[in-house]
């Protein structure tokens, strides 16, 4: 069901000019190089819960008629199309035969100046050899003017590619980043050209494969809403590349706040972390529990009783005001205070607690804001479901 939920522009005080650095990326969006990002935890554990991403996309708005069509400035000199040549160990993949590619899924709109006229069509998500998965897409310009494809889908190190596209495995709750080669290049096609009005440009990019029982994945791009349920097929082609860095398959974490009891929650795979506000649990600057604390901790105990984990981690944190010599011991004492109640209330046998105070390390909120500092003053209780 598609419906219209437009926002009327509400007057508010915001700066007229973009903040410094907004228009250009000042840092690479992904780290490249030889870095192991695979989470062994995520791949070893069996998934029991229901899929992370529920159902199909929910469109609140569509850009339809009347969208601004502007031809961005470009120093365009036509249709030069250098195939991927950075890195001597990069084989080039033959483009699919013929100009008619069957489209298996498409994006609905985009965050570009041509809006819905910028369309990403997915031609294939196919296995192409040992742990290699190739995504073949076309970028189509449905507008009336030329559109120059710049860096919207790529990162700094790999301009004119689609290497910032990622795949989501909802079954295992992981995100697959595109392969990086040891020389920093992506394993992907390169496209530096003008897409004429009505024209289309083909691109491909290689990812690590998911486990065999994963039949489809979602495709995320920096410029369009995600495209769900893209089926994985097998190609008869095989690609090889001996220069690949380690695959980067990273977990996805759900983050929520319970506004009624003022607790936070993160879930990543089977690991649950319940975040308790120190302002609520404790008297100011002390590790003495407040009157409400026991009830709050009791809720956590109930979850632990239902869970299977034998180890529960209790970690205390502070904001960045005050010194480490105060914050570290205080956060330690607070974590211990929570442990003492939990040990009391947890009835399942064989549960052990590991307790640590971290002071102002590992903030989850922005210490420059009051809201962020409050969030950082916390005790988290982490266990496996």
């Amino acid at each position: 069901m598609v419906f219209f939920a437009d926002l009327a522009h509400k007057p508010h005080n915001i700066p007229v000019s973009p903040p410094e650095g907004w228009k250009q990326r000042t840092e690479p969006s992904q780290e490249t190089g030889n870095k192991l990002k695979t989470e062994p935890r995520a791949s070893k554990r069996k998934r029991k819960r229901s899929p992370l991403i529920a159902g199909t996309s929910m469109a609140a708005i569509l850009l339809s008629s009347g969208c601004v069509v502007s031809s961005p400035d470009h120093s365009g000199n036509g249709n030069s199309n250098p195939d991927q040549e950075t890195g001597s160990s990069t084989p080039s993949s033959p483009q699919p035969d013929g100009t008619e590619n069957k489209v298996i899924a498409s994006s609905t709109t985009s965050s570009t100046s041509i809006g819905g006229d910028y369309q990403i069509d997915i031609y294939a998500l196919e296995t192409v050899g040992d742990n290699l998965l190739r995504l073949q897409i076309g970028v189509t310009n449905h507008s009336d003017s030329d559109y120059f494809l710049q860096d919207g889908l790529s990162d700094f190190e790999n301009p004119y590619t689609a290497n910032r596209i990622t795949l989501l495995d909802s079954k295992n709750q992981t995100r697959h980043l595109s392969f990086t080669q040891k020389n920093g290049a992506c394993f992907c096609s390169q496209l530096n050209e003008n897409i004429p009005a009505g024209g289309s440009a083909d691109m491909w990019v290689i990812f690590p494969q998911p486990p065999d029982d994963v039949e489809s994945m979602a495709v995320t791009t920096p410029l369009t809403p995600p495209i769900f349920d893209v089926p994985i097929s097998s190609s008869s082609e095989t690609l090889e590349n001996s220069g690949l860095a380690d695959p980067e398959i990273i977990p996805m974490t759900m983050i929520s706040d319970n506004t009624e009891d003022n607790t936070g929650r993160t879930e990543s795979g089977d690991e649950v972390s319940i975040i308790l506000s120190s302002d609520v649990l404790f008297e100011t600057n002390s590790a003495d529990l407040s009157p409400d604390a026991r009830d709050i901790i009791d809720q956590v105990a109930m979850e632990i009783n239902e869970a299977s984990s034998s180890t529960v981690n209790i970690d205390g944190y502070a904001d960045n005001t005050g010194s480490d010599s105060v914050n570290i011991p205080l956060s330690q004492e607070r974590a211990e205070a929570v442990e003492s109640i939990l040990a009391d209330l947890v009835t399942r046998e064989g549960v052990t607690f590991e307790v640590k105070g971290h002071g102002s390390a590992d903030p989850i909120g922005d210490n420059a804001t009051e809201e962020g500092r409050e969030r950082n003053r916390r005790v988290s209780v982490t266990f496996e479901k």
Partner: protein
Amino acid sequence: MSITWSIENKGNSQEGLAWLKDGSYIYKGQNFAGVTIMDSKEGIRYHPIMDGDGSCLCSGESSNEFIGTLNPGEKIAYWSLFSVPDDIDTVTVEIPNFEPIEDIPIS
């Protein structure tokens, strides 16, 4: 669950969108992680999914093609990805500086 939402600039001056950035939780880099959804029935607010690098699964990463500053009259679509329990039927979309948009059904 993905939400596609757009913002239109009905004013006369160019407006940047940096205020859509994460508020209480920090996500890596540039992002519109300030857009959250609320399950009013349970009183639970969902932030966009965060990956293992700390990145938001949502719009906001800048590039030459990404429109992060709206010219007068411009309306651009963005997206945010959330993980919510299967039994939720409707949510309220919370965009900083705007009134919450209620009763959005999940299809």
